[in-house]
């Protein structure tokens, strides 16, 4: 792994990007550990998620450590103390800790408010963003429909699927993911695949269905995009830990 490739962009970015970068590092380390240790990775994962959580504490100090007004009216600023804890903690981790330390050590810690770098969007911008995502989603499926209709138009009517082709489609679907397996089960039991394919309007619907399932499994799935099992396991563990503990602390603050 090229640690310097990760280190360089961190310095120039704001804390949100830092969390992303440190997460990437942790994920890469998690994958390496999975490869090296197999099932014995649980204890190491505890270290990994702890590193990430500590990083989040440093990047979002006003969420995790709200400023407490002192009797004299001057607010305490605990960020520097947190950063020292964080630096000491990650430096104590064997194997990869010193590498993480070398990455985060040059940063200027503390003093950055979450709301300064991550302004909460007002209702107007939220609605605009919402409609933009939904438009993109609708555009995607309109694109699929128009392309499939166009491609099917190139085929002569009455084209049928061979037995081998039916088997290959079912095999691909089973391999794709949950949605694909569900479709394969339906086509296998009902024997409807050849008949659906034979009639042109239904053929278009069938192909749209198969592409939609492919995207659901391979792109939109929880951790789609062909990630390895180790990386998915590592991410799930880290994400759940960060989210659960983060929520707990935010609730505690309120």
């Amino acid at each position, binding site marked *: 792994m090229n640690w310097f490739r990760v280190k360089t962009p961190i310095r120039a970015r704001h804390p949100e990007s830092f*969390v*992303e*970068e440190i*997460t*990437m590092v942790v*994920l890469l380390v998690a994958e390496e550990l999975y490869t090296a240790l197999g099932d014995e990775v649980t204890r190491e994962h505890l270290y990994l998620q702890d590193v990430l959580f500590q990083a989040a504490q440093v990047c*979002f100090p006003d969420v995790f450590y709200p400023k407490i007004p002192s009797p004299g009216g001057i607010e305490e600023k605990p960020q520097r103390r947190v950063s020292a804890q964080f630096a000491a903690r990650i430096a104590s981790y064997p194997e990869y800790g010193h590498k993480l330390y070398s990455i985060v050590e040059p940063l200027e810690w503390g003093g950055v408010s979450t709301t300064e770098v991550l302004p909460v*969007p007002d209702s107007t911008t*939220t609605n605009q*963003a*919402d409609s933009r*995502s*939904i438009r*993109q*989603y*609708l555009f*995607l*499926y309109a*694109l699929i429909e128009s*392309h499939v209709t166009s*491609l099917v138009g*190139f*085929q*002569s009517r009455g084209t049928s*699927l061979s037995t081998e*082709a039916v088997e290959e*489609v079912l095999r*691909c679907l089973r391999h794709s993911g*949950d*949605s694909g397996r*569900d*479709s394969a*089960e*339906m086509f296998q039991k*009902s024997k*409807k695949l050849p008949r*659906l394919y034979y009639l042109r309007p239904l053929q278009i*619907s*069938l*192909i*749209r*269905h198969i*592409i*939609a*399932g*492919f*995207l*659901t499994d391979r*792109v*939109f799935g929880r951790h*789609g*995009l*062909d*990630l390895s099992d180790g*990386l998915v396991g590592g*991410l799930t563990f880290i*994400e759940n830990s*960060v*989210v659960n503990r*983060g929520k707990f602390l935010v609730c505690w603050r309120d």
Partner: protein
Amino acid sequence: MIEQAVRRALLRLSSSHVLSEDAHLELSHLLRILLPTIPKHLVKSFATPILDAALSFKMAAMAEPAMYRPFWIKHRQKYDDHRMRIPGDAMLDGDILCLIPGLETQHDQITLLKAFVMLL
């Protein structure tokens, strides 16, 4: 915010070195079986913009404050007017063929777009 940062990191990690030849090849392979008489270059010119558009949506959806995700309708599910819509006045009985997955918010599962399905 932290959860989104984790997800964006994952997405960047994914798109930087995976999205991938595998996804393009598998989709192209599937389409070549389904459309055997279509020239290869047409199939390829279909797969690329579809995957690009899908990735664009995914990145945008993950950046939303509420985070969106598509939901799939399985073939045995009962018809549910709140989460599905069908063309015309179809009989509400039979296997479901999901043509467009629905869209919902990640955590509270509020339906933003109903899934578009047909009944077989």
